[in-house]
């Protein structure tokens, strides 16, 4: 089997939002890597730092408040955090694209959808293609995402949510990026459309060989689309591994266990769902030691004292003291 090439590597990334009132620790030293043609799922509750991670990769954090405190974002070996603004512009849309969460607001209401797809092509038209060639590519993209090309002269308000998401996907794919970040691509859509959009993304991934980061809180989406999974909690990756590790592995972080328990199971008769008790800590005021500690059923004084032990087995990494004990027992 050929050696897989690393496309993206994130090292010790730390991001805060600095406001007058508080310092919000959104991402606290996360590490993960993604190979070519692979898909990774970033899973976690709202506020776990998933979107912040995505925005940091593209350097699209809000200018006034977002600060990258440390770490590296290596894309094909180059640190994106060192790039100048014009250099970064050539990466955005061309090599790394993003699909935002809400298709309803992601398109400019004043421009035709065709023009919005065309814009992406025009910005990165380094080959100097003619307007006709670019327009032909727009038609091609519309066909690719399953919208009749005649509709490109229409405005966003004339399309349904699922159709808009397809257009957003067409914009993201316009320049055949190597990495596609999908930030909750199906959350705002209703269930039948969700399946369609996921199917579409899956097909495109296979056809174009794009790597993907899928941000979601839906474990079903992950099981269907991802090769790797990183479970995020309070700005940290508490567990990471292959889909196999997360869904069928023996060892799990208590948070992951909680997430799975919160999914209704049709095979067993269950009176009610078992949600994880408590709320995610305020990222402006994180607990010491293990951030999941206050909600964890296995919480001990040791968890409070220091950053948790990191259990590793091949690609499977779990950040939890539970496994330290076991290691000591053996």
């Amino acid at each position, binding site marked *: 089997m050929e050696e897989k090439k690393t496309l993206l590597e994130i090292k010790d990334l730390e991001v805060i939002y600095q406001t007058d009132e508080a310092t919000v620790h959104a991402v606290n030293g996360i590490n993960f890597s993604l190979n070519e043609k692979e898909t990774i799922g970033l899973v976690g509750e709202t506020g776990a730092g998933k979107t912040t991670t995505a925005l940091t990769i593209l350097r699209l954090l809000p200018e006034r408040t977002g600060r990258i405190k440390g770490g590296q974002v290596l894309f094909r070996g180059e640190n994106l955090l060192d790039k100048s603004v014009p250099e970064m*512009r050539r990466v955005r849309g*061309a090599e790394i694209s993003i699909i*935002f969460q809400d298709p309803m607001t*992601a398109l*400019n*209401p004043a421009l*035709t959808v065709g023009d919005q797809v065309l*814009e992406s092509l025009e*910005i990165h038209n380094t080959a100097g293609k003619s307007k006709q060639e670019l327009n032909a590519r727009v038609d091609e993209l519309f066909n690719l995402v399953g919208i009749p090309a005649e509709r490109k002269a229409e*405005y966003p308000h004339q399309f349904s949510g699922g159709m808009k998401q397809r257009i957003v996907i067409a914009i993201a794919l316009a320049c055949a990026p190597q990495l596609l970040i999908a930030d909750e691509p199906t959350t705002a859509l209703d269930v039948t459309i969700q399946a369609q959009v996921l199917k579409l993304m899956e097909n495109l991934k296979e056809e174009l060989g794009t790597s993907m980061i899928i941000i979601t809180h839906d474990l079903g989406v992950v099981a269907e689309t991802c090769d790797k999974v990183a479970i995020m909690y309070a700005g940290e990756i508490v567990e990471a591994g292959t889909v196999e590790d997360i869904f069928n592995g023996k060892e799990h972080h208590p948070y992951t266990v909680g997430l799975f328990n919160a999914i209704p199971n049709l095979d067993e008769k269950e009176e009610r769902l078992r949600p994880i008790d408590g709320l995610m800590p305020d990222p402006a005021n994180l607990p010491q030691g293990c951030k999941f500690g206050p909600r964890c059923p296995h919480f001990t004084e040791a968890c409070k004292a220091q950053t948790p032990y990191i259990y590793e087995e091949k690609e499977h990494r779990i950040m939890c003291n539970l496994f330290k004990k076991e290691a000591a027992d053996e």
Partner: protein
Amino acid sequence: MGKFVLKRLLALIPTILIIVFVVYFILDLTPSSPGQLILGQMATEEAVEAKNIELGYDKPFLVRYVKYIIQLFQGDLGTSWVTGKGVLESVFARFPVTVTLSAGATVLGIVIGVLLGILAAVKQYSIFDAAGTTLAMILASFPAFWIGMMLVILFAQELGWLPSYGTGSIAHYILPWFTTACAFIASQLRMTRTSLLESIRMDYVRTARAKGQKESVVIYRHALRNALMPVVTMAGMNFGTLLGGTVTVETVFTLNGVGTLILTSIRSKDVPVVVGAIVILAICYTLVMLVVDILYGFIDPQVKARYIKN
């Protein structure tokens, strides 16, 4: 679209009926004798009485109102009681001055106000933002006549660069334009800033940035275009208001505009001129707002779709 315009023009008719009624009614509350006005102080009581009857002034208010409306829709605005000239003629004699003044001030207000507003929004919390909003506050707080007089003292009296009164050339209009534009620049700046700040935070602006678009194009093509609605509305309203509301500036710079005409006519109880001038201004205002509405269609395709559907 044509249907939409026609509908709006038809809506002018009830508007005019109401305006004439209100103006007529208010002027009727103060006692006046048109016969006296026309014939002068030296006329005999009998002659004045005869003239009033000839003008129909012995008839009740509503009868006179209906008679005026009928005349109006035949295109007859009547004649001035004071000068004896046709109302239409006297208003249109003043109109070029007012339109030049209002249009120039509107253009200045839009250009300066919108540009400074964009700068303040794009560089929010910077020195440009602080300077812009402070300037807006200063411009809005000083009355136009005071600003006008200060400009006259500086540029006409001290420096001698510009004339301080009259309407001979473009140079004559520069000071009045700036004086009138002040309040307008302030409102336009604030409106542009607020509206643009809102649209800059929209998701589609982030989408444009994620495409790798240049910041200047992101602002112009994506943010500004969607922020224009309230800016255009305000510009139209301001222009419409200026058409009849430049009396103070006209007085400071001794320009003979429609505002001054209305003011002097009210003082001399020259009812036909007052009502006629106000009707003409009301029609102009409605037309300006109609243009604004049509512009909406060009800015927002959703509005355009609605116009075409109706």
